[in-house]
């Protein structure tokens, strides 16, 4: 084989690889969208007969702990804890863990909620960093608030301490800046109540972007499309991911991630499988590990997914914060996938091993790498005269029309199901963002995914800094604490 033949052979081989990969990806996403459509339709029909209020005063309802890890959140922590108290549920407590903040997070909490140190004996079922003290609120309204002050150990460590402190049946882990819908706990608890022969070990819900939304008394008072273009494009990304991707994966029993911003878990199963691991993507890692644990114990289980928007969070609105987040997500994904490589195409782990894990490996981890290699390959071919400009253009048009079609499909799902963007022109604004997304968000996202891969290869396991801009609060809205103070 001479040099030309070798080049031709490699070129032929790479052509087939890239094209097959692209078609596989497109068909996978299309398939997932169809499955999620079916699942959404069933869920909506089913949900139309549900009266969640029956759980509220039922003695048969399980107890729930809401776990809030906090690190350097002094500016927002009091508002955030207050917003948790807008949820509708009876048998619950709130455990806030100050993870050795270097700012006044703990002092703010102490002052606002009149915290007092108590003689709390912690059962160290999961090993954690040292706890400095456990505090309870003296205010009657917050009598079920527990604040733990501990040495810094990272988010996973803070959550593990909270799990040790909790004595409830279920726990809901949320981010300190998450804004919960009032019925979030009720909706997440329900799948656990529907357990039949398969134990429900976790339930996830849809996380939405709260940028530009109006917040009143810890609740979303007005849903708005973000003014910031980067945040607006992330609305589309979240809609695709939560409404189409995760819904379908839950239906196929292959869901391997529940967002760290909000997820509910069976406490006993999490403790038995060792709690949160000290990784970057601790949310995904936990789901994979508890699933693995149940499979290895040969216990029947399932992970449920609630497509209702249950939690609102702030999305990064500047490129550097967005980049740090995306690099961290990439590192987290790689870490989880490599730590649990045993699952890859292993029938022992059911749909997770045969579908969920391979999909994440092929289309979440490898996709950015394949895309960059594809672009480099196309450039080389073009400059060596082996590729026409027309072919490049139609390939680009092919990818672009698919991306636009897929996002429009997601917008349609949102409109037909939960219809949260009600203002005139909202859908149009989102669609314009969809037109621009492949030119703006996608290249940025791709760049930081590659950066994440490089950082991982270099051994970077840091969480990085996440700067929050804070939410827009409606003027004149008073918090519960302010109302209490006024009463006095």
């Amino acid at each position, binding site marked *: 084989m001479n040099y030309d033949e070798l080049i031709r052979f490699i070129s032929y081989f790479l052509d087939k690889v890239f*094209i097959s990969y692209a078609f596989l990806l*497109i068909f996978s996403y299309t398939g997932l969208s169809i499955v999620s459509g079916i699942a959404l339709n069933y869920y909506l*029909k*089913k949900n*139309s*007969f549900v009266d969640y209020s*029956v*759980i509220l005063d*039922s*003695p*048969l*309802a399980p107890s729930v702990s809401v776990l809030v890890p906090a690190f350097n959140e002094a500016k927002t922590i009091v508002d955030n804890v207050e917003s948790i108290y807008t949820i509708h549920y009876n048998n619950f407590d709130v455990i806030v863990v100050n993870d050795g903040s270097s700012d006044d997070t703990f002092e703010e909490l102490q002052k606002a909620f009149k915290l*007092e140190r*108590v*003689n*709390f*004996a912690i*059962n*160290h*079922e999961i090993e954690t960093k040292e706890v400095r003290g456990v505090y*309870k609120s*003296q205010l009657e309204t917050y009598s079920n608030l527990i604040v733990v002050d501990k040495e810094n150990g990272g988010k996973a460590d803070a959550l593990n301490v909270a799990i040790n402190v909790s004595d409830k049946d279920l726990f809901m882990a949320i981010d300190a800046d998450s804004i919960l819908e009032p019925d979030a706990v009720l909706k997440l608890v*329900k799948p*656990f*109540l*529907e*357990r*039949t*022969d398969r134990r429900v070990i976790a339930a996830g819900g849809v996380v939405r972007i709260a940028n530009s939304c109006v917040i009143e008394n810890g609740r979303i008072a007005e849903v708005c499309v973000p003014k910031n273009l980067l945040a607006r494009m992330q609305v589309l990304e979240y809609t695709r991911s939560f409404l189409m991707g995760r819904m379908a994966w839950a239906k196929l029993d292959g869901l391997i991630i529940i967002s760290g911003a909000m997820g509910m878990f069976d406490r006993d199963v999490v403790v038995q499988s060792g709690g949160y691991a000290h990784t970057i993507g601790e949310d995904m890692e936990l789901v994979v590990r508890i699933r693995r644990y149940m499979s290895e114990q040969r216990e029947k289980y399932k992970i449920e997914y609630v497509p209702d928007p249950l939690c609102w969070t702030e999305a990064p609105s500047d490129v550097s914060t967005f980049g740090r987040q995306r690099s961290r997500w990439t590192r987290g994904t790689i870490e989880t996938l490599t730590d649990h490589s045993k699952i890859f195409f292993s029938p022992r782990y059911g749909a997770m091993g045969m579908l969920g894990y391979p999909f994440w490996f092929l289309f979440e981890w490898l996709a950015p790498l394949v895309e960059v290699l594809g672009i480099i390959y196309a450039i080389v071919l073009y400059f060596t005269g082996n590729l*026409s400009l*027309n*072919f490049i253009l*139609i*390939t680009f*048009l*092919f990818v672009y*029309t*698919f991306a*636009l*079609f897929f996002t*429009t*499909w997601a*917008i*349609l799902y949102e*409109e*037909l199901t939960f*219809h949260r963007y009600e203002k005139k022109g909202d*859908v149009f604004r989102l*669609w314009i963002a969809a037109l621009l997304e492949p030119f703006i968000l996608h290249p940025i996202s791709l760049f930081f995914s590659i950066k994440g891969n490089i950082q991982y290869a270099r051994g970077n396991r840091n969480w990085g800094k996440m700067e929050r801009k804070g939410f827009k609060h409606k003027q004149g809205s008073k918090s519960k604490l302010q109302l209490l103070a006024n009463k006095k």
Partner: protein
Amino acid sequence: MLLLDQYIILFDFQELVSSTLALLIAVFDFLSNLIGRLQAVINYVFESLPYNALNRLIVYMILIFFVSLIILLPTILISKLYLAYQKTRYNQIHVKYSQIIIDYLIGNKGVHDINDRDKLKSSRFHRNVMIDVLMAIDKAENKAVSDRIRALYLDLKLNQESIRKLDKFSWNKKIFGIRELSHMRVKSENQKIISFQQKNNDVLRIESQMGLIKLLPYVPFAFLDSQEKPFTVWEQINVFDLIRKNRIEIPEFHLWLEHWNDSVVMFCLDMIRILKQKQAAPKVLELIYHDNDYVKGKVIKTLIDLESYEAISKLKEIYYLEELPNQLNILRSIGQLKMESEINFLEDKLKSNEFKIRMEACKSIAKIGETGVARLNALSVNADEELKGIINHVLDPRI
């Protein structure tokens, strides 16, 4: 004048027909032109690319995505408008019918004075809104009002609409039928509703159970006899809610304690416990050696909530044979009965290496009262660090 009106209408109609035709021709022309140009673009693309299957596939897929986009965009718009229209229409008719029914109920109108009967006969949408209105107003819990509403429902022959729903293919339509018939106490279709209990669709199954509880007020829990599928906690919560909110004959739940379906047994144990059916205690005690640990856990809780002091010796007897969750249940139960005589048994458990057992035993000792607290204080002097911490925790009134 009338003639003039007719002329105007005729004139407008002719104008409309001719302008519509012209519009259709223009649209047709535009579309053929567009298709022609599209065909030209595709031909150009095919000519400029090497002829192979891949290129053709890519171009056709672009076309598919593009056409899908063109379909999706107006679909979003139309669905948005349609949903808004349906909502407005529903609300308008709802308000109108609510007023009619309120007039009927406060005596201004008789059954035969209800207008809109023609509309109700011809429009399914109107019939369904009327059913919704009747069911919403009937939530007043007033027997006389309820009877009048039921009479009106039957008089307007809305029951036929509800019965028709039971035969629909779609399971959610069937549920609407069950809800309406059970709400209006129409018993003619009971057999059909009973048959839904064996369906695989869990929502349909739950609704048929709830419907039967309402329709058979003297034997509301007959469905438990044939309960083959697991009776989930969600179903139990709904059934319990129905018991609380309606005038339903509450049965002796110990009748199902020997049921082969463990989930039914657990539900009955919960009901015995919550409804304080103390006469069931001996039957409950018989289940103390049940194979299923979850059932056993419920048995322990039930016995103690029924204040069955005689069960304590049995519980102590099985303590060492049980897994941790039930050991904790036993310790918790003894604490609940505040029996000073059991203080030594509880104190013995403080020697355990298991944190949870020590904690539960301490809590139970503290619940006994002054004697218990004094014993804990005394124990704290020579206790190891963990036990000291637990005792401090238990004795801290702020926790």
